[in-house]
């Protein structure tokens, strides 16, 4: 789910940058540092604006200036039980991996309907029920997230398509 979230971060600036456009530099550095990262349970998708840049404080010892910057960011946090649309990126006999934006989701065979079976002989290998559903690399699927796990710098989830209205989604917008 997407949220507009107020966050705060400390940004340090090298003394050589001290000058009149320091705030721009701080903002720039913030964007560079923060945008697109994952902090534990959510991804920071985009920074909308910074609304509060504190006065710089010189850090003893290094001479760097530290600014506390409050900013507003669009964050995306995948929840347990949330349904997301994703694109299959790899398929193997244990299940398939799909990506919903930055989030990787694994769907195990246990969580794929019984009638959708692994077909290793197809090219490329796929999950199919020999009717309307074929899941191969590049397929758009709708997945319900069952669990998430945070790793350093990334999130990771397992999902299920074993419910109504989940699975193969041929016409995703």
């Amino acid at each position: 789910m997407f949220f507009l979230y107020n966050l705060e971060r400390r940004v340090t600036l090298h003394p050589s940058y001290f000058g009149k456009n320091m705030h721009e530099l701080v903002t720039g550095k913030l964007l560079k540092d923060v945008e697109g990262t994952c902090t534990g349970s959510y991804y920071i998708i985009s920074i909308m604006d910074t609304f509060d840049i504190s006065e710089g404080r010189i850090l003893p010892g290094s001479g760097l200036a530290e600014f506390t910057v409050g900013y507003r960011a669009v964050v995306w946090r995948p929840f347990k039980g949330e349904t997301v649309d994703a694109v299959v990126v790899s398929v193997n006999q244990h299940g398939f991996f799909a990506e919903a934006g930055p989030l990787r989701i694994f769907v195990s065979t246990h969580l794929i309907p019984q009638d959708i079976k692994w077909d290793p002989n197809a090219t490329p290998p796929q999950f199919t029920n020999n009717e309307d559903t074929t899941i191969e690399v590049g397929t758009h699927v709708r997945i319900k997230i069952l669990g998430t796990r945070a790793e350093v710098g990334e999130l990771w989830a397992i999902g299920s398509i074993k419910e109504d209205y989940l699975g193969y989604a041929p016409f995703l917008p």
Partner: protein
Amino acid sequence: MSDPRDYNDAESEEEDDFNPAPADMSDDDAKGDPEADEDDDDHHRQTTKGSSPAHKRPAAADHDEDEDEDDEDDAANNGDGGGDDDEDEDEEEEDEEDEIQGHRRKRRRDKRNAFFDIEAEVDDEDEAEDDEEAEAENEGFIEQEELGDFGDAGRLESDRRHRELDLQRDRMNHEDLQKEAESFVRKYGHRRHARGMGDTTIVPQRLLLPSVDDPSIWGVRCKEGKEREVVYSITKRIHERMGTKDELGITAAFERGGPNSIYKGIVYIEAYRQTDILQALDGMLNVYPRSKIILVDIKEMPDLLRVQKTPTLEPGAWVRLKRPMKYAGDLAQVQDITENGLDVKVRFIPRLDYGVRDDTISGNTADGKRKRPIMGPRPPQKLFSEVEARKRNPRILTGNPQTNAWSFGNDYFEGGFQVKDIKIQHLTVKDVNPSLEEVTRFTSGGEDGVENIDLKSLAASLKDSNATTTYLPNDVVEVYEGEQKGVVGKATQVQADIVTLQVTEGELVGQTIDVPTKGLRKRFQLGDHVKVIGGSRYRDELGMVVKISEDRVTLLTDQTNTEITVFSKDLREASDIAGQGSLGQYSLLDLVQLDPTTVGCIVKVDRESLVVLDQNGDTRQVMPSQIANKLPKRKLAVAADRTGSEIRPDDVVKEYGGMGRQGKIVHIHRSYVFCHTHQTTENAGIFVSRVSSVSTISAKGGRINAASSGPDLDSMNPAKKLNPTGRNDMPPPRQVFGRDKLIGQTVTIRKGGWKGLLGRVKDTTDTHARVELHTKSKVISVPKTDLMVRDSVSGREIKNYESRRPGGPNGTPARPQERAAPDWNSGSRTPVVTSSARTPAWKTPSGGIGGRTPAWGRGGDGGRTPAWADGSRTVNPYDGSRTAYGSGGRTPAWSSGGSKTPAHDYGSKTPAYGGSNGDSWGSKTPYGASAATPGASGSDSWGYTPGASGSSNAYDAPTPGASMLGAPTPGALNAPTPGAYNAPTPGAPTPGGGWQSGWGTESAPTPAAAAPTPAASGSGYYGAPTPGAYAADTPGPRYTDDD
């Protein structure tokens, strides 16, 4: 006799007629129920006006009288007690009465009932009805009687009362008789009963305990394991001799043998005298009555018979072997249990060596004694192989290939498993704890090869062993057995095997209940992040639950993305921050040194071993002890991919050719990259490739083939800000000033689809030019590098066109673009092109670049060489010998980057350049060239090179001096030092400094690249053993730090 009989008859008739009323009345009277009395009074008053005073007397007196008369009656009854018929009849009557009024009488008998108003009232209605009925019936009589005079009435009244009394007495008498009969039944009937059923609910158990009057029990020694047989033969003997004159004097015999019993080897016999035992056991096998017979103390007798629940062995159960020693601890499966319950037929995986050591085992020593079997390392568990057996010892092999049943020597094999009868005492039956792994071996031996583990039976045998299951507070548990089945809660407290639950679901929500662990299992939900804790081989794996069925949980492991199935008891909720699997100091994805020439990346961490993917792409399982050391992760390691672009850890690269795998670089080690991909789960997604066979897809942080991923030293360096002109942070491109001279020029296109066409430049950007073609009225955009400027009139090529960089030696037009793109850092790190641009010679004309400390420039090729190559190699012990090779190999690689040999650098490029520029350096060309030559060949005198440069540059003075005094040492030391640190300093730009450091660096690579030279000189002056290595050493760490 007839009289009482008549009387009785008459009375019985009367009773039949008037049964309800008199009975009631008598009851009332007997109880002295005041209310009943009142009732009576009421209707007596109605019927008999001016009621008798007798009726008014207190109930108590009435009662007394009753009792008195009772006695008389009793006596009378006793008198005619002989009349059984009467009694029977009476009893029958009484029974009838009972049936009718049973409940009422019961209640009435309790005097206290009188005080319960409610009961009385409720019953009054009935009573009243009854009374009314009786009244109605009686009415006729009484009315008639009433017709007589009062005295008569009084007589009648007293008569009636007497009759009542009689009736009552009679009834009570009957009651007594009935009671008596009942008591008889209770006494004797019960006894009969007890004898039949052995019911002990009434007789207290302590009364059943043996006393001194009972026969004693003696324990008689017998052969161990034959206890039951002895008992059988005693039974047999009892039957044989029954009824004969030498009937056995013993009353019972039993045994408490068993594999683990402490009573084994003893038969217990119950008899009055010891001699009876001796007689009974005389001549019996396996029992030794002549040895000491133990008299069991009376107190201990019950203990002897206490039933202990013995673990039941059923076919399919898992046990562990204790004997034969070879198999001690091995898991076995029960196939059958012999009738006597002493032997068990088990199957297990044999440990055979097919007679390899048989010679020593069966051979007899000289003194005729059998040699003890040498207990060497026991052979590994392996299914029986007919082929092996045939090869080694065909003579003792017999069997049937169809059924796959073989006998080999004295052993018997079925389907690869050894089958053997083993005594129960040689088996461990409790706490077997078979692990899934072990059990899997039993099932994988199936003909179809399909694993079909009966997890249920396994679970059962696991559950028997109550051990290992641990519950901790906050575990979510579920009761699956017993009354509270289905209750889900959170454990709040665990004491021994009692878990206190806070119920979280269902009706009992919020309550706290205690449940024994036996009926508990942990509960998980899909998607939970769990850790394997139990005794399974997956211990310490972390994963997410993907399937739950009963108490089996399938999870997807974090490390390897494989699915494993374990029991829920072996799981527990993992904290969200998953610690990566590690074993000792080694953890997943670490780079480790396996042997001097092999490194590998850890792709799997097991409990005791690691799986390593080595640089050749092979996986091997190693113990931590087999690992030489762990290579620290070098975040700033760098290499060049096949296109010469720089690659670093965390860059995404793709294999060129081969499998075309794409992945993120985890490690770079020399010419190997270890990459991680999500495409496959094999080897934890790690694959290895050569640096030269990958190409960059995307660099971390969008770095275009350049920018360091570390702190941007460049921008952090205030010094660089001071003198913007000299800085190359963003070297002001020359063409920035004014209009691009290219505009309006006639050009030809050198490359691409428009190759060869003539046109005119209409407009330019930094990199591209819009060219209006002459041939076709069309304006196309062409990279400036692809343009060749021509004289608009003659069509002659204008080589030194101004808008271009003061060209490369061959006027490579690639300049401007490269010029724009790389910043200072990148320059230093992409030596391929810029190295030439940064040679000191080169520097002069293009001040900016040259000023950038040749050390750095050289750092690209020369400076880099020892730094990178040797830096990394010094760490490796085996590298000392390799230094020459390493740097030698690398140096040209680097400096040649664009296939430029060192010779090319100094020999051709520099002079060519110098020549073309015609600057003072030109004079140095020969030196330069020769400098390179000896460097490369190493045959020339060391002094020559510095001499050459020294002659042209005052700054070189120290260098030759150094080289003369200790050629390699200062050279090596100087090289990086000024190089590295001069670079950013403002002083650096001076050509002298630049040259000095340039020289320094140059000398650094020289020994490295061609170790012989410094080696020769070094040994010449100092006899330094390996200056090459030394020289390499010194800068090494410096640069490593830098990295």
